[in-house]
């Protein structure tokens, strides 16, 4: 069943059960959101997405309000804009004014909406949160003074990752997101954090950032190169963040078919080998007990020659192949062909079975 409603004077037809937020998106109308995420449950908490709906009491949040036939929605009426400006004003009043050095600068939802609604600075003077920064994690930097309590990290960890590391603690103005017993994220025996960084991928502000990307580059300086993770055969995709020809970080690419925004600790944070000085960049052949640099042609020729020699001398059954879980299916398939057709042996196995 489809439903037709009017948003900002524009007629929109959507399936029953659609939210006002989704219907507006379909009509090309952007409504700001902090706590909403299509992959997660809907808490209706931040209230920045409120709209005016004719005949409804107060300003309902568009993210959890379902469309009704004939509904008349205004997404930028005077009352709505006043409410959004006030909410932004309230958030800024309890937010560190350190945008200049904030890692999220240029990619921050709070800054984006403050810009959109012209809220230059907070008009309230009063208490500000003063939580110690959690630097205990090897990979994540958590500054809860920047947190707007949208709860996305809480939900992604519980609903997608299944770890439930975070939850809300305390209440009212002193509410804070924290692991159990308010331990540091890096105290993994207590916090149970696996450092997957799914929370960093959903945080709309600079409350959780990648430690190894801090101070390395601004979002507009990097070229995002979509690639496949080399660590295992899952085939997760992500964006390498490249600045001046160097990889300075990894960020989620929501269009990744296999993994969406979710990665494991290795894919998201284990990229320091790329520019490591210990890394092998050319083939080495051991000559007289010493490794000597060789060309690829020479190395491959040498391997082929030795393989043939072994096969002729000792037969196919003297050979065996072990492949790796880090290879893709295609690569493993090719190794299997190589073993059975070229070497003539069924001695092929995989490290994941060891």
């Amino acid at each position, binding site marked *: 069943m489809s439903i037709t409603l009017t948003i900002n004077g524009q007629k929109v037809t959507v399936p029953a059960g659609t939210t006002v937020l989704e219907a507006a998106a379909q009509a090309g109308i952007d409504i700001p959101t902090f706590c909403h995420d299509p992959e997660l449950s*809907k*808490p*209706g*908490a*931040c*209230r*920045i997405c*409120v709209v005016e709906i004719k005949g409804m009491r*107060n*300003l309902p*949040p568009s993210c*959890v309000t*379902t469309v009704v036939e004939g509904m008349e929605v205004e997404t930028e009426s005077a*009352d709505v804009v*006043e*409410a959004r400006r*006030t*909410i932004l004003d*309230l*958030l800024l*009043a*309890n937010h560190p004014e350190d945008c200049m050095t904030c890692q999220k600068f240029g990619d921050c939802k709070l800054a984006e909406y403050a810009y959109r609604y012209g809220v230059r600075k907070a*008009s*309230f*003077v*009063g*208490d500000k949160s003063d939580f110690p920064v959690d630097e205990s994690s090897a990979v994540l930097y958590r500054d809860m003074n920047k947190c*707007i*309590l949208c*709860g996305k990290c809480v939900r992604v960890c519980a609903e997608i990752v299944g770890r439930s590391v975070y*939850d*809300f603690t*305390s*209440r*009212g*103005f*002193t*509410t804070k997101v924290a692991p159990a017993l308010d331990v540091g994220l890096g105290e993994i025996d207590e916090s149970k954090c696996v450092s997957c960084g799914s929370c960093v991928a959903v945080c709309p502000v600079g409350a959780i950032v990648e430690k190894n990307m801090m101070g390395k580059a601004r979002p507009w300086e990097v070229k995002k190169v979509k690639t496949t993770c080399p660590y295992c055969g899952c085939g997760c995709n992500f964006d390498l963040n490249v600045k001046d020809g160097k990889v300075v970080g990894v960020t989620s690419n929501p269009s990744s078919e296999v993994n969406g925004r979710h990665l494991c600790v290795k894919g998201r944070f284990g990229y320091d080998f790329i520019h490591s000085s210990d890394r092998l960049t050319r083939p080495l052949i051991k000559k007289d007990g010493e490794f000597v640099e060789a060309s690829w042609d020479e190395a491959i020729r040498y391997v082929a020659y030795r393989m043939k020699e072994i096969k002729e001398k000792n037969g196919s059954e003297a050979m065996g192949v072990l492949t790796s879980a880090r290879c893709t299916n295609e690569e493993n398939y090719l190794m299997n062909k190589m073993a059975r057709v070229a070497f003539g042996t069924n001695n092929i196995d995989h490290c994941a079975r060891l």
Partner: protein
Amino acid sequence: MQLYRAHVLVCGGTGCVSSGSKKIEQALTDELAKQNIDKEVKIVETGCHGFCEMGPIVIVYPEGTFYCRVAVEDIPEIVSEHLVKGRIVQRLLFKAPVTEEQVPSYKEIAFYKKQQRVALRNCGHIDPEDIKEYIARDGYEALAKVLTGMTPNEVIEDMKKAGLRGRGGGGFSTGLKWEFASKSPGPKKYIICNADEGDPGAFMDRSVLEGDPHSVLEGMLIAAFAIGADEGYLYVRAEYPLAIKRLKVAIAQAEEMGLLGENIMGSGFSCRLHIKEGAGAFVCGEETALMASIEGSRGMPNPRPPFPAVKGLWEKPSNINNVETFANVPVIYLHGADKYASVGTEKSKGTKVFALTGKLRNTGLAEVPMGITLREIIFDIGGGIMDDKKFKAVQIGGPSGGCIPEQHLDTPVDYDSLTALGAMMGSGGLVVMDETSCMVDVAKFFLNFTQKESCGKCIPCREGTKRMLEILEKICDGNGVPEDITTLEQLGKVIKNTALCALGQSAPNPILSTLRYFRDEFEAHIYQKKCPAGVCTAMLEYKIVAENCKGCGACARVCPVGAITGEKKEAHTLDTSKCIKCGSCIEKCKFNAIVKG
């Protein structure tokens, strides 16, 4: 069954327990034994009588003699004079405030005269830990009537006809609520009683639970039958240990008698009830947060829809009503919906219990018919203002309510008229303020409460109430600026419009209503830097009026900081730079020589 020639009812409500009724009960037991009449006179520990101001309360039947402020020393006299010789102890009777006339009977006291006790019908009259006393007062008869002769639909129709509206604050039609839950499909449904009473000063639910727990259980069972629930929860705040204890006793007794549990009264209808103790969060009185708390999650409200009737506890259709609402239910089926609906106003039927607190002569619980005026409640039942001071305002509806001034005291009390005045019925908390109350300070008190109890989920409530409170503190400290009033109004409007739950949406009410009726007090604080009621210490200055001062030195001796100096028998002087405005000197001075302002 043993017969007694007299019954002595000792109030075991929380108010009287704290003023010493447990000791009275013990002394009575001892004295009756001593005078050897313990086989003739029975002592009954009852629930609350509502007139807590006069506690501990002791009532002697069959005469119905109402003794107040009874002390342990009075017991021998009551026993030997009244119980042995049949002579009423005059000096312990209630004295009418103006005429000083002694009033021997319960019903003749002004505090009770205008009351109509429906929800509180048994409170103070029966032993709440004895199901037989409840049954003797027609208890469980309504349930029997419903289970043996009515269909769920008929039960709902009768409830709609009775016009009962939610007594917890929302005022939503109970019949409609039941109908929604009943029409919601599903084999498993829950009935929930909201006993997380948390408004400052409100204790009507506590009194019902402590004084008449079976009426709530019976109400819940009738509702469970109407909506098709076979299980239910009573969510009781842990700060009510006596209520929890009595509910446990009541549940056990009802189960034993086959009035609760499997196959109730052999009707085939089954329903089990559990108690869930709250953990001290005010917001858990909000129904979605309450259900989250029962489920073991953090007590945070969730957006509605879906309403509990559709997706409630553990995502099953559920119906939540408040304690007082349930306590009204059996009466409707016992005496008929029409009779119930004959009391009250057109849109608000029946009676409502109010908790009278503040600067009233008679504080306590009063149940009155809807449509009574605030003036009647405050001046007739409440006995007017203490110490003959002038009435200033009444805060009604708890922290979500508003302050109503003198000119609206003749408004008939019902859900809609109170909302129109910028207050609300709420749970029925009624705090009376006199001329010595500062309205900015009052607004600050209530906002401080809601701000502390905000769950922190939505931004307008979490951050907005904090900023409103800071502005009020600034005004009370004498640092207010003219823009503060506009900011308060603007913030209040946005919070009302955008907060997630009723706690947030109503949090600005105390400020908006005081701004509406007492704007001049805000302006005096801001422009003249004066607190007209003399409450906000930052703006007060203490002065010694030289011509009144006799130089007795009492003030100087009591001053904790040595701000007052002077020679004996000569006018003293007060050093304002040292003064901490504690007020000790004013209390001590017998000559009205010290003034503040």
